[in-house]
Protein backbone atom coordinates (compact mmCIF):
# COMPACT_ATOMS: atom_id res chain seq x y z
CA UNK A 1 0.00 0.00 0.00
CA UNK A 2 1.40 3.37 -0.93
CA UNK A 3 1.33 6.16 1.53
CA UNK A 4 -0.53 8.88 -0.31
CA UNK A 5 0.02 12.52 0.45
CA UNK A 6 -3.50 12.71 1.84
CA UNK A 7 -2.91 9.77 4.14
CA UNK A 8 0.39 11.26 5.33
CA UNK A 9 -1.36 14.54 6.04
CA UNK A 10 -4.20 12.76 7.79
CA UNK A 11 -1.78 10.85 9.95
CA UNK A 12 -0.04 14.05 10.99
CA UNK A 13 -3.05 16.14 11.71
CA UNK A 14 -5.76 13.71 12.82
CA UNK A 15 -4.64 10.23 13.82
CA UNK A 16 -2.43 11.18 16.77
CA UNK A 17 -4.31 12.86 19.63
CA UNK A 18 -1.26 14.62 21.03
CA UNK A 19 -0.28 15.91 17.58
CA UNK A 20 -3.79 17.32 17.25
CA UNK A 21 -3.43 18.91 20.64
CA UNK A 22 -0.24 20.69 19.58
CA UNK A 23 -1.78 21.84 16.31
CA UNK A 24 0.80 20.04 14.19
CA UNK A 25 0.37 20.82 10.51
CA UNK A 26 1.55 18.92 7.49
CA UNK A 27 3.95 20.98 5.37
CA UNK A 28 5.42 18.80 2.64
CA UNK A 29 6.57 15.42 1.52
CA UNK A 30 9.59 15.96 -0.69
CA UNK A 31 10.92 12.63 -1.90
CA UNK A 32 11.38 10.73 1.35
CA UNK A 33 11.67 13.89 3.42
CA UNK A 34 8.63 14.65 5.52
CA UNK A 35 8.11 18.11 7.02
CA UNK A 36 5.62 19.24 9.67
CA UNK A 37 5.27 22.45 11.63
CA UNK A 38 3.63 24.10 14.59
CA UNK A 39 2.84 27.71 15.26
CA UNK A 40 4.18 28.79 18.62
CA UNK A 41 1.76 28.88 21.52
CA UNK A 42 2.23 30.36 24.98
CA UNK A 43 2.19 26.94 26.64
CA UNK A 44 5.15 25.71 24.57
CA UNK A 45 7.51 28.02 26.45
CA UNK A 46 10.29 26.46 28.48
CA UNK A 47 11.95 29.65 29.66
CA UNK A 48 9.52 32.41 30.62
CA UNK A 49 12.24 35.10 30.54
CA UNK A 50 13.47 34.42 27.00
CA UNK A 51 10.30 32.78 25.57
CA UNK A 52 12.40 29.93 24.18
CA UNK A 53 10.27 26.80 23.68
CA UNK A 54 10.87 23.79 25.92
CA UNK A 55 13.13 21.11 24.50
CA UNK A 56 10.37 18.59 25.12
CA UNK A 57 8.25 20.18 22.42
CA UNK A 58 11.10 19.78 19.93
CA UNK A 59 11.45 16.15 21.05
CA UNK A 60 7.76 15.55 20.37
CA UNK A 61 7.91 17.14 16.93
CA UNK A 62 11.01 15.17 15.93
CA UNK A 63 9.63 11.90 17.32
CA UNK A 64 6.38 12.43 15.42
CA UNK A 65 7.92 13.37 12.09
CA UNK A 66 10.52 10.60 12.38
CA UNK A 67 7.82 7.98 12.85
CA UNK A 68 5.93 9.22 9.83
CA UNK A 69 9.16 9.27 7.80
CA UNK A 70 9.41 5.54 8.49
CA UNK A 71 5.94 4.98 7.01
CA UNK A 72 6.95 7.05 4.01
CA UNK A 73 10.01 4.85 3.49
CA UNK A 74 8.48 1.43 4.14
CA UNK A 75 5.07 2.24 2.63
CA UNK A 76 3.59 -0.15 5.17
CA UNK A 77 1.07 0.84 7.79
CA UNK A 78 2.33 -1.28 10.60
CA UNK A 79 2.64 -0.27 14.21
CA UNK A 80 6.16 0.76 15.05
CA UNK A 81 7.92 1.54 18.28
CA UNK A 82 10.66 4.07 18.87
CA UNK A 83 13.76 2.25 20.08
CA UNK A 84 15.80 5.32 20.76
CA UNK A 85 15.97 8.96 19.93
CA UNK A 86 18.93 11.27 20.35
CA UNK A 87 18.47 15.02 20.06
CA UNK A 88 21.14 17.71 19.94
CA UNK A 89 19.84 21.17 20.73
CA UNK A 90 21.92 23.44 18.51
CA UNK A 91 20.52 26.83 19.40
CA UNK A 92 17.56 28.30 21.25
CA UNK A 93 14.34 28.83 19.30
CA UNK A 94 13.34 32.36 18.37
CA UNK A 95 10.00 33.47 19.79
CA UNK A 96 6.98 33.77 17.50
CA UNK A 97 8.40 32.01 14.43
CA UNK A 98 6.81 28.67 13.58
CA UNK A 99 8.87 25.55 14.24
CA UNK A 100 9.44 23.10 11.43
CA UNK A 101 10.51 19.52 11.94
CA UNK A 102 11.65 17.31 9.10
CA UNK A 103 12.90 13.76 8.94
CA UNK A 104 14.08 11.19 6.47
CA UNK A 105 14.28 7.47 6.97
CA UNK A 106 17.58 6.62 5.29
CA UNK A 107 17.54 2.88 5.93
CA UNK A 108 14.93 0.28 6.76
CA UNK A 109 15.67 -3.39 7.27
CA UNK A 110 12.97 -5.99 7.89
CA UNK A 111 13.11 -5.20 11.62
CA UNK A 112 14.57 -1.76 12.18
CA UNK A 113 14.33 1.66 10.54
CA UNK A 114 16.90 4.44 10.93
CA UNK A 115 15.89 8.07 10.74
CA UNK A 116 17.62 11.43 10.89
CA UNK A 117 15.83 14.70 11.35
CA UNK A 118 16.16 18.33 12.22
CA UNK A 119 14.10 21.25 13.47
CA UNK A 120 14.39 24.79 12.13
CA UNK A 121 12.44 28.02 11.95
CA UNK A 122 12.32 28.66 8.24
CA UNK A 123 15.95 28.23 7.20
CA UNK A 124 16.85 24.57 6.70
CA UNK A 125 20.53 25.51 6.80
CA UNK A 126 20.25 27.00 10.25
CA UNK A 127 18.68 24.23 12.36
CA UNK A 128 17.78 24.62 16.02
CA UNK A 129 17.99 20.86 16.70
CA UNK A 130 19.20 17.68 15.08
CA UNK A 131 18.00 14.14 15.75
CA UNK A 132 18.77 10.52 15.03
CA UNK A 133 16.37 7.76 15.93
CA UNK A 134 15.74 4.09 15.35
CA UNK A 135 12.40 2.33 15.20
CA UNK A 136 11.33 -1.27 15.58
CA UNK A 137 8.99 -2.28 12.77
CA UNK A 138 5.81 -4.39 12.97
CA UNK A 139 5.71 -4.42 16.71
CA UNK A 140 2.29 -5.99 17.12
CA UNK A 141 0.52 -9.02 15.77
CA UNK A 142 -1.60 -9.40 12.68
CA UNK A 143 -4.93 -8.30 14.15
CA UNK A 144 -3.34 -5.14 15.43
CA UNK A 145 -1.95 -4.44 11.99
CA UNK A 146 -5.32 -4.94 10.34
CA UNK A 147 -6.90 -2.64 12.82
CA UNK A 148 -4.31 0.04 12.15
CA UNK A 149 -4.79 -0.30 8.41
CA UNK A 150 -8.54 -0.10 8.75
CA UNK A 151 -8.22 2.97 10.90
CA UNK A 152 -5.90 4.71 8.49
CA UNK A 153 -7.95 3.71 5.45
CA UNK A 154 -11.01 5.17 7.08
CA UNK A 155 -9.10 8.30 7.99
CA UNK A 156 -7.78 8.83 4.49
CA UNK A 157 -10.31 10.54 2.24
Amino acid at each position, binding site marked *: MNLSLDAAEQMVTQAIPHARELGIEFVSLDGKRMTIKVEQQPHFIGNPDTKVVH*GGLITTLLDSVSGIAVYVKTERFEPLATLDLRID*YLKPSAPDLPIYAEAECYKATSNVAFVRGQAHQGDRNDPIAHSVGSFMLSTKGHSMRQEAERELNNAAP
Partner: protein
Amino acid sequence: MQLLDHIRAAQDNNDYNEIIRHIPYMDWLGIHLEKDPKDGLLAVLPFTERIIGNPLLPAIHGGVTGAFLESAAQMTIFAELGTEKLPKIVNITIDYLRSGRPQDTYAQGVVTRQGRRVANVRVDAWQDDRNHPIASAHTHFLIG
Protein backbone atom coordinates in the same frame (compact mmCIF):
# COMPACT_ATOMS: atom_id res chain seq x y z
CA MET B 1 8.88 38.62 38.54
CA GLN B 2 11.68 36.96 36.66
CA LEU B 3 12.18 33.23 36.75
CA LEU B 4 15.25 33.76 38.96
CA ASP B 5 13.01 35.09 41.74
CA HIS B 6 10.85 31.99 41.57
CA ILE B 7 13.94 29.77 41.54
CA ARG B 8 15.28 31.49 44.65
CA ALA B 9 11.92 31.16 46.36
CA ALA B 10 11.84 27.47 45.42
CA GLN B 11 15.35 26.92 46.76
CA ASP B 12 14.51 28.79 49.98
CA ASN B 13 11.29 26.86 50.57
CA ASN B 14 12.58 23.57 49.18
CA ASP B 15 9.50 23.48 46.93
CA TYR B 16 10.52 23.01 43.32
CA ASN B 17 6.93 22.96 42.11
CA GLU B 18 7.23 26.73 42.40
CA ILE B 19 9.61 26.62 39.40
CA ILE B 20 7.44 24.24 37.38
CA ARG B 21 4.44 26.50 37.80
CA HIS B 22 6.40 29.20 35.96
CA ILE B 23 7.60 27.01 33.12
CA PRO B 24 4.53 27.02 30.88
CA TYR B 25 5.23 23.82 28.94
CA MET B 26 5.82 21.67 32.04
CA ASP B 27 2.86 23.20 33.79
CA TRP B 28 0.67 22.58 30.74
CA LEU B 29 1.58 18.88 30.75
CA GLY B 30 0.63 18.78 34.42
CA ILE B 31 4.12 17.70 35.46
CA HIS B 32 4.72 18.12 39.17
CA LEU B 33 6.96 16.85 41.92
CA GLU B 34 6.12 14.69 44.88
CA LYS B 35 8.25 13.60 47.75
CA ASP B 36 9.58 10.13 47.07
CA PRO B 37 8.65 7.86 49.98
CA LYS B 38 12.11 6.28 49.55
CA ASP B 39 14.39 9.21 48.90
CA GLY B 40 14.45 12.56 47.14
CA LEU B 41 11.89 13.78 44.64
CA LEU B 42 9.62 12.04 42.19
CA ALA B 43 8.44 13.76 39.04
CA VAL B 44 4.87 12.87 38.07
CA LEU B 45 3.28 13.03 34.63
CA PRO B 46 -0.46 12.61 35.13
CA PHE B 47 -2.23 10.72 32.37
CA THR B 48 -4.62 12.75 30.24
CA GLU B 49 -6.28 11.91 26.93
CA ARG B 50 -4.37 14.67 25.22
CA ILE B 51 -0.95 13.05 25.70
CA ILE B 52 -1.93 9.93 23.77
CA GLY B 53 0.28 9.19 20.78
CA ASN B 54 -1.22 5.87 19.70
CA PRO B 55 -5.00 5.76 20.13
CA LEU B 56 -5.22 2.04 19.26
CA LEU B 57 -3.18 0.68 22.15
CA PRO B 58 -3.61 3.35 23.63
CA ALA B 59 -0.14 4.62 24.51
CA ILE B 60 1.42 7.84 25.66
CA HIS B 61 3.18 9.80 22.89
CA GLY B 62 6.89 9.00 22.91
CA GLY B 63 7.65 12.67 22.54
CA VAL B 64 5.77 13.46 25.73
CA THR B 65 7.66 10.70 27.54
CA GLY B 66 10.87 12.32 26.27
CA ALA B 67 9.69 15.75 27.36
CA PHE B 68 8.86 14.35 30.78
CA LEU B 69 12.32 12.78 31.14
CA GLU B 70 13.95 16.07 30.13
CA SER B 71 11.79 17.99 32.60
CA ALA B 72 12.57 15.56 35.41
CA ALA B 73 16.30 15.84 34.65
CA GLN B 74 16.08 19.63 34.72
CA MET B 75 14.37 19.57 38.11
CA THR B 76 16.92 17.08 39.43
CA ILE B 77 19.64 19.66 38.74
CA PHE B 78 17.79 22.30 40.74
CA ALA B 79 17.22 19.96 43.65
CA GLU B 80 20.66 18.31 43.73
CA LEU B 81 22.91 21.20 42.75
CA GLY B 82 20.99 24.14 44.15
CA THR B 83 21.62 26.05 40.92
CA GLU B 84 19.95 29.42 40.39
CA LYS B 85 19.99 29.38 36.61
CA LEU B 86 17.60 27.43 34.45
CA PRO B 87 19.73 24.55 33.12
CA LYS B 88 19.90 24.60 29.32
CA ILE B 89 19.53 21.27 27.58
CA VAL B 90 22.43 20.37 25.26
CA ASN B 91 21.31 16.91 24.28
CA ILE B 92 19.19 13.98 25.32
CA THR B 93 19.35 10.32 24.37
CA ILE B 94 16.17 8.42 25.11
CA ASP B 95 15.81 4.65 25.18
CA TYR B 96 12.21 3.55 24.88
CA LEU B 97 11.77 0.32 26.78
CA ARG B 98 8.03 -0.28 27.02
CA SER B 99 4.97 1.48 25.73
CA GLY B 100 3.53 4.05 28.12
CA ARG B 101 0.14 2.80 29.19
CA PRO B 102 -2.74 5.23 29.87
CA GLN B 103 -1.90 5.89 33.50
CA ASP B 104 0.31 8.20 35.56
CA THR B 105 4.06 8.02 34.95
CA TYR B 106 6.86 8.69 37.43
CA ALA B 107 10.47 9.70 36.93
CA GLN B 108 13.55 10.18 38.98
CA GLY B 109 16.91 11.53 37.91
CA VAL B 110 20.40 11.42 39.27
CA VAL B 111 23.26 13.79 38.51
CA THR B 112 26.03 11.45 37.41
CA ARG B 113 28.62 14.15 36.89
CA GLN B 114 28.78 17.82 37.68
CA GLY B 115 31.36 19.93 35.92
CA ARG B 116 31.77 23.67 36.01
CA ARG B 117 29.70 24.16 32.90
CA VAL B 118 27.98 20.86 32.19
CA ALA B 119 25.94 18.45 34.28
CA ASN B 120 25.21 14.86 33.20
CA VAL B 121 21.88 13.54 34.39
CA ARG B 122 20.45 10.04 34.02
CA VAL B 123 16.72 9.66 34.42
CA ASP B 124 14.28 6.75 34.38
CA ALA B 125 10.52 6.82 33.90
CA TRP B 126 8.21 4.06 35.08
CA GLN B 127 4.56 3.35 35.79
CA ASP B 128 3.65 0.52 38.17
CA ASP B 129 7.09 -0.75 38.98
CA ARG B 130 10.24 1.32 39.06
CA ASN B 131 12.25 -1.81 38.31
CA HIS B 132 10.49 -1.97 34.94
CA PRO B 133 11.08 1.47 33.44
CA ILE B 134 9.17 2.48 30.32
CA ALA B 135 11.97 4.80 29.21
CA SER B 136 15.39 5.89 30.26
CA ALA B 137 17.48 8.87 29.19
CA HIS B 138 20.84 10.42 29.61
CA THR B 139 21.09 14.15 29.25
CA HIS B 140 23.63 16.96 29.25
CA PHE B 141 22.71 20.40 30.52
CA LEU B 142 24.67 23.64 30.55
CA ILE B 143 24.61 24.91 34.10
CA GLY B 144 27.26 27.66 33.95
